[in-house]
């Protein structure tokens, strides 16, 4: 994001920035720390600026970050949004994609609030892979890994990304332990969820209860009303 010359220095925008990247210059104009900015676009979308001084940046850095931060924004190369492998509880009744005999775990890095270095994802992915978990990451990240992650991109801040692992319920306690060790050593936080068909969830809950793995008492539940036309 960038601020154009119409800024009147009212400072109304400052608290809206999700990463605290907006600052006031010596000339009392708002400006954006581009290293901190994750291109979430809240400054623009919130309509908080009385003179519409916020503008999207179209350079390579902004295009890199935006799909990880802004709702529905697409990667400029792959033309896809950042998401997992298409396992979606929300439509699984009409369009079944969840595996019948496995669970899909997502490790959502720095959720809630967001803000991490792109290299944190790669480090966590590499460590989880070393431990045998075969994690997948968001579409752009996967492309970058295949093409070789540069030092420059590793240092860039993005809003968030997740790792996805398909696994047996019995393995969940171990992966939670492995992830916790990594996260604690790298000053990150990760929200974890698992998705599966109803029968697999029953089995999973028994496993987690036996192993003493924490479960929040909330869930997203597909009520089974969807169907093919």
């Amino acid at each position, binding site marked *: 994001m960038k601020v154009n010359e119409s800024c009147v220095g009212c400072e109304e925008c400052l608290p809206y920035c999700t990463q605290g990247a907006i600052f006031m210059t010596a000339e009392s104009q708002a400006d954006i720390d581009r290293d901190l900015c994750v291109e979430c676009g809240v400054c623009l979308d919130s309509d908080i600026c009385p003179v519409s001084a916020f503008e999207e940046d179209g350079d390579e850095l902004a295009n890199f970050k935006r799909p990880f931060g802004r709702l529905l924004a697409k990667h400029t190369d792959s033309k896809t949004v950042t998401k997992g492998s298409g396992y979606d509880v929300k439509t699984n009744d*009409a369009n079944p994609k969840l595996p019948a005999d496995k669970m899909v775990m997502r490790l959502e890095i720095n959720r809630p609030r967001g803000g991490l270095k792109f290299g944190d994802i790669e480090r966590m992915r590499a460590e989880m892979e070393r431990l045998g978990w075969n994690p997948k990451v968001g579409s752009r990240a996967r492309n970058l890994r295949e093409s070789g992650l540069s030092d420059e991109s590793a240092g860039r801040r993005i809003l968030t990304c997740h790792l996805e692992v398909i696994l047996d319920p019995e393995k969940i306690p171990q992966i939670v332990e492995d992830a916790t060790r990594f996260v604690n050593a790298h000053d990150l936080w990760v929200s974890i969820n698992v998705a599966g068909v109803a029968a697999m969830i029953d089995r999973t809950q028994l496993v987690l209860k036996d192993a003493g793995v924490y479960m929040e008492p909330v869930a997203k539940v597909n009520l089974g009303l969807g169907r093919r036309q």
Partner: protein
Amino acid sequence: MSHTVHRRVPDREDDYVLLLRSSKGINREGAGKKLLQLLERMEPLQPVGYGNPGKGTTLRTSVDEIKKNLDDSSNLHIVFKDTQSARKAVEIAKEMDSGLSATLAGPLDTIRSMAAEMGLKINSLQIDLGTIGKKSFDTATEGILSLCGHMRVSENLIREMRAKVKAGEIDAESAAREIGKVCLCGCFNTHAAGKLLSS
């Protein structure tokens, strides 16, 4: 992103999100009209709000505009602040039998009981295993942050609104609405956020 799984409000029965959607090539034809019919049947339940990422939310757009913009590719997120309203909404979805997918995010045991009582066969679930690692925010801040799963709410805005509520410059519900304006998909629960702001 799993945008409605990790919601962390202390009073769980204050927060339900009903997600209605179609799938391309599966049940998309006529979905816009069905969504509008479902919405209009559920409006008397007085949802906290509703919306859709591309079509607007009740905190940002007029209701007429949201309805006008609903088309076959739309989805719809409707937030309820109590179990009774959420239950009635599910009853309506079942009765209307639109063939669209309906997913309810909220307290798991209550939703399971609800589904069993209505004879619904749950298809699939996504459950929250909590957050690991070191978080720098307090419980109330985390609760408000979590109500926007796309992470568009800033800690600084929460801090500012809390201070204004504490100073009596604004009431908690209005402060929650101001925060909720940054949510583009309609999932922000101003009722639950208002309670957290005044806690």
